[in-house]
């Protein structure tokens, strides 16, 4: 127990927490936007891989870091467009299309990698985003360095989280997205195009997922490895539910999850860590997520039209 407390009061734990949470925030927001519009995007895992690869290879090829971020965003949006056209316009199963896109995005990233770099023994490295402490704010004890001594992409994640929350709650666009996820017929009856809103949401959401991937190769690390996304996308799907489809809660969930992760990494070094199999630590975040779902499930409001295709002109 004292081990846990010692970890919790160490500044480095909190810094790690925010660092681990950052890619999750991007991708969770992305998934949340898709689901609020009524589309479950199981392409998330693959789109993160594609974003991680595209951003990194662009920088490796000579573009600037921010241009690389742009490339990742566009790559994600392209896969989002494919997902949107298939699931929204044609109303195909969101499960199949999502998993298919995960496979497609992952495999085509790997394939391109191999074509571009046929004979390397370790992937080339780029100069990743450096840590840029924000003056004054980063001097706040404990939380300062954690929140404000990070790379610019983490700050971008904060900004996007706030923007997403505000747009969804306050703007006409956010209302349209929410309504598309609640009752597409209502959207159409008010003269808006359900297809345009849903496809747009899936594209933007997928773009954010790709940024989550790009964070891994351009901020958390500096090169691209196969399988480096390592299930983070699936976690984000759980985080959206955990956050009851609310951006604020979902981001809080990302921090919580990252907190468990940062904690378990450190617990492995403690007396507890030598007695308990390391797999139990790795399980911790997943099991706690399930428990959290049980505790809060009753209040969660699922978008009513989630996973329901809407085809214009079809009898309902």
């Amino acid at each position, binding site marked *: 127990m004292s081990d846990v407390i010692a970890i919790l009061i160490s500044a480095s734990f909190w810094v790690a927490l925010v660092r681990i949470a950052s890619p999750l925030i991007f991708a969770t927001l992305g998934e949340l936007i898709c689901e609020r519009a009524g589309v479950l995007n199981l392409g998330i895992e693959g789109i993160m891989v594609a974003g991680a690869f595209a951003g990194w290879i662009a920088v490796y090829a000579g573009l600037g870091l921010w241009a690389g971020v742009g490339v990742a965003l566009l790559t994600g949006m392209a896969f989002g467009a494919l997902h949107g056209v298939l699931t929204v316009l044609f109303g195909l199963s969101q499960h199949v299309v999502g998993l298919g896109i995960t496979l497609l995005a992952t495999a085509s990233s790997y394939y391109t990698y191999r074509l571009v770099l046929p004979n390397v023994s370790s992937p080339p490295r780029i100069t990743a985003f450096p840590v840029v402490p924000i003056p004054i704010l980063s001097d706040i004890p404990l939380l300062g360095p954690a929140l404000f001594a990070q790379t610019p992409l983490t700050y971008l994640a904060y900004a996007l989280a706030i923007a997403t929350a505000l747009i969804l709650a*306050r*703007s*006409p*666009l956010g*209302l*349209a997205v*929410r*309504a598309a996820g*609640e*009752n597409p*017929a*209502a*959207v*159409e*009856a*008010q*003269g*808006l195009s359900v297809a345009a809103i849903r496809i747009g949401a899936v594209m933007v959401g997928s773009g954010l997922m790709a940024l989550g991937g790009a964070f891994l190769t351009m901020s958390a690390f500096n090169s691209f490895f196969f399988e480096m996304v390592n299930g983070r996308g699936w976690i984000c799907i759980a985080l959206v539910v955990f956050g009851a489809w609310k951006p604020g809660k979902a981001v809080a969930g990302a921090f919580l999850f990252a907190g468990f992760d940062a904690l378990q990494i450190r617990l492995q070094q403690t007396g507890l860590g030598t007695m308990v199999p390391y797999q139990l630590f790795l399980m911790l975040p997943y099991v706690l997520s399930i428990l959290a779902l049980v505790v809060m499930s009753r209040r969660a*409001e699922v*978008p*009513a039209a989630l996973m329901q295709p809407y085809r*214009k*002109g079809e*009898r*309902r």
Partner: protein
Amino acid sequence: MEDNTTPALRVEGISKRFGANLANDAISFEIAQGEVVALLGENGAGKTTLMNILFGHYTAEEGRIEVFGVPLPPGRPAAALAAGLGMVHQHFTLADNLSVLDNLMLGTESLWRPVSARRQAAARLRKLAQDFGLSADPDAKVGTLSVGERQRVEILKALYRDARILILDEPTAVLTPQEAEALFATLRRAVALGLSVIFISHKLHEVMAVADRVLVLRHGRLVGETPIAGTDPARLAAMMVGAEVVPPLVAASTEGQVLMRLSGVATQGQRPDLRDVDLDLVAGRITGIAGVSGNGQAALAALIGGLARPVAGEVSLQDQPLTDWSPRAAIKAGIARIPADRHREGTVADFSLTENAVLELYRSPGFSRRGWMNWPAARRFARQVIARYDIRGPGEGAAVRLLSGGNMQKLILGRLLERDPCIILADQPVRGLDIGAVTFVQNRLLDARGRGAAVLLISEDLEEVMALSDVIHVICDGRLSPAFPRGSKTVAELGLWMAGQGFSHAA
């Protein structure tokens, strides 16, 4: 460019095909400004389809539409809204989890505005509410509203967008008479302000009350048109159906034993719950339950259908006290239901007619044995129901979602009557049905009574209850009035009971 002689709406040669089904066949008509036109037709005649074309949900294969003299681009609800069309859909197009104001504002502002102007919108809503006598709490979630309140929100949606032509597709199907009356008052105000109204309803007395002119559709074609002055419900019914419609004739019947008895029953979980309810269901008798919707009808139906159990009091079936009570047990006991919501509770839309026909019967010996379905028997049964109940549709193998509401109701009726139930629970049995179908359903209920079944008729339509019932109870806030034999109370007297007067210890 527009003056008072330009028709508000001109429809020319609209045709629409669904597969082989010609839903609209070269329909042409005009509507003047400030005019209320009623659109009549049997279930499946093509009324909703036509309105959906007007509003841009569907695109017609042929024909053109002009609004105030300006051609309306097809297939774009946004264009229809901009041209001044407002539509109250047959199935509400509201997002339950959003607030009233959100539903209203959706799509009314540029999507690229950073922040919605909610304050102005709320003010505008208040003003509209005043002008048209429609009150609505802007912050209430639509899902928490009653059906009548939702209806108001739908109308407010159209008015909020400055609709000049209001399309109302069966707005009263789910309203209580009081709510319907309030709606008509609103419509009159709207017309006084110069709006035109297209009004679809199967209730001919309503049509007589609000419309200036009537258009009649049959099998997708416009078959008649008449000013309201100089016509009457019987003539309208004949125009719709193409033949004289004879209202149900209530013959005398012989009553038998008490089949089900509720004494001092209370329930828990529904709102409002039943309180201290005494009720006898007697063989050969139609027992009517009159009352404003939301006064415990749902709890009563759930109790009798086996979905709820009494928490106090006693229920007995043929003098045997109830022990184990569930939908299964109710079905076994010979109770058959016409549920209030046929789409949600009565049928499985994606199942075939065959599969729906045996939905409640599949466990009975004829249709399955030791867990094995007897599909040939089920198919035979479905064909028999289709033939006997005149269910028009693509056949027993087709999905039920393709049926019109009336035909769906006939299927439900057929499947329950064919098993010769001893008790029939008919919850809003004619909701949304055309006059022909209404007569058909009511006649079948009377037949069942004649054969010795006990019928419990729950309806918000007082006229219907009074016409069919041998005894009437009024339900109010979960309590049941004493039984009033046929003819013993006037409409006005029952109305007082419905408002809560007369109950012994009123809360």
